[in-house]
């Protein structure tokens, strides 16, 4: 009974507890596997948040790396410029630094969300491939702007930032991943969230039923961007060095491949695809030259043979059978 009513909340709680417990034993996990796990977690956040825009709302965004970049730069600049005095003001220690990290992540996420709003509002007039190109254009603009900042300035120009505190750990990555899965999942499954699906399935019909499709599109963009910003912050504090070149078109494509492989609109599928592709990436590292050739072929073959993804949305399939 309790599980029926609060099932998803209980799952979230369980995920948070598991990530906390596991993080207490991270010393015993090999660094190499730990790194893969953290990358997989960050990719889950990116893929799930992009899935809200591309999968559930049906707006094809090709600029997810731009939001990640803003989140990464936002949080990294904050901890680099003001991290130490802030941590001291909060009483130092694990708690002080943890608090600084949370604030930095949130600042990065909020900046990314603001950018998401800025991209979302003007792009609303566009559909399909035009939107894809404009988001790609935004991605390039962000990259060019960060690359061309003053080398001595806070953003470090083309060389980027280094010496970022390695705050990211197992708990933060998987707690935020769990929250992003929960937020996106429960948003889409709520009464409110049906609007996202309306935008995807038939925008014109939705509008004629009095649904404010514009608001749904912006909401999807802003929330997707916010979580991408958090992922960017986690990434920056995991890698400890970032540069604008790492947040280009190819990074966006990486995330898009995860969403497509998992199945647009299928949260579980996308999570699995994010993990599988991260692990695959590691194993293909010895075959670096073939890696992207394989990925691009996956993309083409998927589109021709199975455009709905490996694990398509179950609800969608059922609907198809009845009609």
């Amino acid at each position, binding site marked *: 009974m309790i599980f029926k009513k609060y099932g998803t909340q209980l799952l979230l709680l369980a995920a948070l507890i598991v990530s906390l417990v596991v993080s207490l034993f991270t010393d015993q996990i090999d660094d190499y596997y730990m790194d893969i796990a953290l990358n997989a977690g960050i990719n889950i956040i990116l893929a799930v948040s992009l899935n809200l825009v591309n999968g559930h709302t049906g707006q*094809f965004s*090709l600029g997810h790396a731009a939001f990640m970049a803003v989140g990464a730069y936002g949080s990294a600049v904050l901890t680099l410029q003001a991290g130490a005095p802030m941590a001291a003001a909060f009483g130092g220690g694990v708690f002080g630094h943890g608090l600084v990290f949370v604030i930095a992540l949130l600042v990065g996420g909020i900046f990314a969300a603001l950018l998401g709003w800025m991209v979302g509002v*003007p792009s609303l*007039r*566009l559909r*399909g*491939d*035009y939107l*894809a*190109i*404009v988001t*790609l*254009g*935004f991605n*390039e*603009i962000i990259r*060019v*702007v960060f*690359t*061309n900042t003053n080398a001595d300035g806070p953003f470090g120009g083309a060389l980027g930032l280094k010496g970022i505190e390695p705050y990211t750990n197992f708990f933060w990555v998987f707690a935020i991943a769990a929250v992003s899965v929960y937020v996106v999942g429960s948003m889409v499954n709520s009464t409110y969230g049906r609007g996202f699906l309306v935008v995807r399935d038939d925008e*014109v019909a939705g509008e004629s039923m009095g649904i404010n499709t514009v608001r749904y599109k912006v909401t999807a963009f802003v929330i997707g961007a916010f979580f991408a910003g958090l992922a960017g912050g986690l990434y920056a504090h995991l890698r400890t060095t970032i540069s604008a070149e790492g947040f280009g*078109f190819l990074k966006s*494509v990486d995330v*898009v491949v995860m969403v*497509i492989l998992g199945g647009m609109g299928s949260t579980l599928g996308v999570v699995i695809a994010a993990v599988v592709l991260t692990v695959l990436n590691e194993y293909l590292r010895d075959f670096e*030259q*073939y890696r*992207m*050739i394989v*990925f*691009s*072929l*996956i*993309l*083409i073959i998927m*589109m*021709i043979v199975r*455009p709905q993804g490996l694990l398509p949305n179950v609800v969608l399939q059922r609907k198809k059978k009845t009609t």
Partner: protein
Amino acid sequence: MEQFIQQLLNGLFLGAIYALIALGYTMVYGVLRFINFAHGDVFMLGAFAGYYLHKALMPMMSALPAPVSAVVILLLSMLICGVLGIVIELLAYRPLRSRPRLNVLITAIGVSLFLEYTAQYIFGATQRPFPELIPKKTVEGLGGLYVSNTQVIVLVATLLLLLALRFIVMKTKMGLAMRALSLNPTAATLMGVNNSVVISFTFGLGSALAGAGGIFYASLYPSIEPFMGILPGLKAFVAAVLGGIGNIPGAALGGMIIGITETLVAGYSQDIGIPSGYKDGVAFVILILILLFKPSGLLGKVEREKV
């Protein structure tokens, strides 16, 4: 003032190449209503085809005058790219013809990545110098302006190709079929137009032009690498949208505007305190502005969407 005119001239030469690539986008969009993302990579392959053809054929053609051998290399590269375009359409796009446009776009991105990374695997990632097909000479023209013979040849050759394209589209039967298909595919089919043949032809023609663009670009900026097609490709796409996508004179105009704006920004932005590296962002700012204020482009027709 002299410097300004010099910048305008340089912009004109760059813009001509953008126009040439933009034509490929516009033609494919006009006929199939989708953005061929891989077009920029066909451009890259055109440059590489020129590089290898030069290497392979030069011993045989050393007796011929430079312009003749250059034309041979250019035509062969165009042929290679044209065939490549037809093959890409056949293998990747044709199976998707009745699917949603988004699926085709994603496939096109896949094809683009595939071409880039396969090229990187085969040719290596290092930049290499593009040979001078015609020995370069820079002349000081009127009023202290510098123009190289390469630039003039590229501009003239581009104009000739544009005229040839105009002839094909306006005066031949195939061109008539292309125009019919872009107006109304169903009606065109009913009137006996073979869609598949026309689409193949369009891809071949557009890809051949991209191949020529690749050689011209590499002649002006003589350094080639597998990823050189991405930015010019995207900028040319912006040019096509700026001129009104699907509109052939519009693509030429858009290419010129993008080329000139970019050169001016690179030349003058430092005077107002903006790094010249921002020139790569200019095209995208233009794209966003044009889509916001005049989504049909400068010369495009407004299309009503039917429900």
